[in-house]
């Protein structure tokens, strides 16, 4: 018997027997009616899907080969994704554009259970970095294909999307720009700052403590703190407002994300450099490397995996955190989240939240793979 399998099977059983698979609502803001899997999908497909999911959930229970578990869980996830699309088509009355069908707790629980099974199998297989990136790519392509095929078009989240497709992509652009831009700025500033901290010991405690304090300021408070100085810059520095600096909007969001990013970058640079073997540094001096050569040929390459780990933390953190930019008119996917909250339209919230989570997850997988690759070479 597989220990994790017990949890997976229990979750799946609960989801299949008790929880609703989908929710049907007459329009986007009224409370919905729960629908079970058997009623959500047309016969006989419903029976087939149910049987398949039960079989795979039971398979999780017994000890089988890791490959078999991986394949089974992927099949289950694909089946789930197709079934929810079918449910949307089946439940929406012909020609009704107000009705909304969304995944319900049962769907999410099943997805979670089988994703757990897949992750567990993947972890045990320990695939090399290249294979992990490939798997990520295949997953992304699969999702893209599903979206393109139109099989999900009946789902509420895609109905929200179809009415605001243009603004969606614009906000995705803003979101990515905010997250990556602040990361780039934090790397450009944080790396040399970390270097200085490494070389000048008294500076280290001062800088790291200040950055730690910044890290503890809640984002709303930080925005508040930034309004005054940025507003001042906008009015007093010529050209500042022309490039978009203002007390509210994207500028303070960018600055806040940048400030939050500094600590991981600086701290990991310091840790990475401190971890370079003393003998290697000494030998570098002994063979006649200049200060700069020592830094670029020995210290930075050896510290690189740790620095990269800091950048990974920042990237994932920033993709999530960039949602709050919407609070002060900075744009990004947070726009949909906060609009959705304001209108009590869950589907709109999901339109902002799901892509954010997906991007953060993809960034984490991608950078972990790169870090492992770099470490293997070091």
């Amino acid at each position, binding site marked *: 018997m597989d220990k994790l399998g017990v949890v997976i099977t229990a979750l799946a059983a609960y989801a299949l027997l008790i929880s609703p698979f989908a929710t049907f609502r007459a329009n986007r803001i009224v409370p919905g009616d729960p629908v079970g899997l058997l009623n959500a999908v047309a016969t006989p497909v419903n029976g087939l899907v149910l049987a398949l999911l039960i079989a795979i959930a039971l398979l999780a229970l017994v000890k089988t080969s890791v490959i078999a578990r991986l394949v089974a869980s992927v099949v289950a996830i694909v089946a789930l994704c197709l079934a929810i699309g079918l449910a949307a088509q089946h439940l929406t009355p012909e020609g009704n554009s107000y009705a909304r069908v969304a995944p319900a707790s049962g769907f999410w629980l099943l997805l979670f259970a089988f994703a757990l099974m897949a992750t567990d199998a993947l972890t045990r297989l320990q695939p090399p970095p290249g294979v992990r990136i490939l798997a990520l790519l295949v997953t992304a392509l699969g999702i893209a294909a599903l979206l393109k095929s139109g099989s999900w078009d009946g789902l509420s989240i895609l109905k929200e999307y179809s009415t605001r497709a243009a603004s969606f992509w614009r906000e995705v652009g803003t979101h990515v720009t905010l997250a990556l831009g602040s990361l780039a700025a934090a790397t450009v500033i944080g790396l040399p700052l970390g270097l200085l901290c490494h070389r000048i010991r008294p500076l280290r405690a001062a800088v790291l403590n200040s950055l730690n304090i910044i890290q503890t300021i809640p984002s709303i408070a930080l925005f508040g703190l930034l309004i005054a100085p940025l507003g001042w810059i906008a009015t007093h520095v010529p050209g500042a407002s022309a490039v978009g600096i203002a007390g509210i909007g994207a500028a303070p969001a960018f600055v806040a994300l940048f400030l939050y990013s500094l600590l991981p970058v600086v701290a990991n640079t310091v840790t990475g450099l401190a971890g370079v073997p003393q003998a290697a540094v*000494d*030998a570098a001096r002994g*063979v*006649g*490397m200049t200060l700069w*050569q020592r830094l670029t040929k020995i210290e930075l390459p*050896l510290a690189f995996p740790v620095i990269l780990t800091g950048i990974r933390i920042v990237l994932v953190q920033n993709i999530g955190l960039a949602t709050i930019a919407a609070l002060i008119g900075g744009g990004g996917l947070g726009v949909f989240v906060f609009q959705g909250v304001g209108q009590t339209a869950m589907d709109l919230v999901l339109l902002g939240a799901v892509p954010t989570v997906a991007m953060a997850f993809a960034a984490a997988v991608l950078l972990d793979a790169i870090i492992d690759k770099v470490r293997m070479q*070091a």
Partner: protein
Amino acid sequence: MIEIDTLCKSYDGVEVVRDVTLTIQPRTITVIVGTSGSGKTTLLRMINRLVEPTSGTIKLDGEDNRSLPGYELRRRIGYAIQGHGLFPHRTVGQNIATVPSLLGWSKARITARVNELLTLFQLDPAAFAPRFPHELSGGQQQRVGVARALAAEPNVLLMDEPFGALDPIIRAKAQDDLKAIQKHFGTTILLVTHDMEEAIRLADMIAVMDKGCVVQFAPPSEILTKPATDFVATLIGTSDRPFRLMSLAKVGDAVEPGSANGLAIAASMNQRDALAELLWSGRQALPVTAADGRVLGRITLEGLTARAGHSSGHPA
């Protein structure tokens, strides 16, 4: 030639190298011996200015070592640091190529040099050049460390306990190799160790350090026969001193006329090994042959023990 003149180094008022004056002849091996903390590493590192002296001067071939920027000086002086100090993220080939590439040698010349050195150190270039340091044994790492120090054909080579990590057999082999390499390139070598045996084996001149001072600077035979201080005497030990002396002298110097039966001994073997051979074989005498196989005479147990007893072997 390296001229060290009244060299001192203190850390926070504590003198760790005191008033050292030494002249090291070109193309010789000088070994610095001393107990831990006696200032050997510090003295060595002042020569390539990894440590700046508090006072005193060092001249290399008549030129003050401060007339060049430190990093340029260090590219000219080979340095094998205590522990191998290889760069873990670079292959063996890249490690050895460090100084030549800093000096801007052409790719072809660097590759040729790396291959030459690896072959010299009995490491197959095809197999070892692409490996990373952690894929080598401790002994191989140390050899690569020495190869890296020799890469740019330096006239002077500083070595800080280069054979520390080796077992006795490999160590003896490495010492022989070093002597051969030194002869081959005509390098001036300054080597630090705390092993008197190693010093006697390798050195043309030995500098004994105690609490920051050089208490005796003399050839091995003189160190053994006339230790300048009690400290030197303790360092060389008393019980096996005769044998150490014998290990410096060649069989050729103890040949007596006459003939003997048994396996012939080469005239170039040291007397200590010859004595061991006599004792093992249980014979009173063994024939001695020259390199060309000509019989020179014989060596006797009686003759060798007499030499050992008088502590008056003629060192080569």
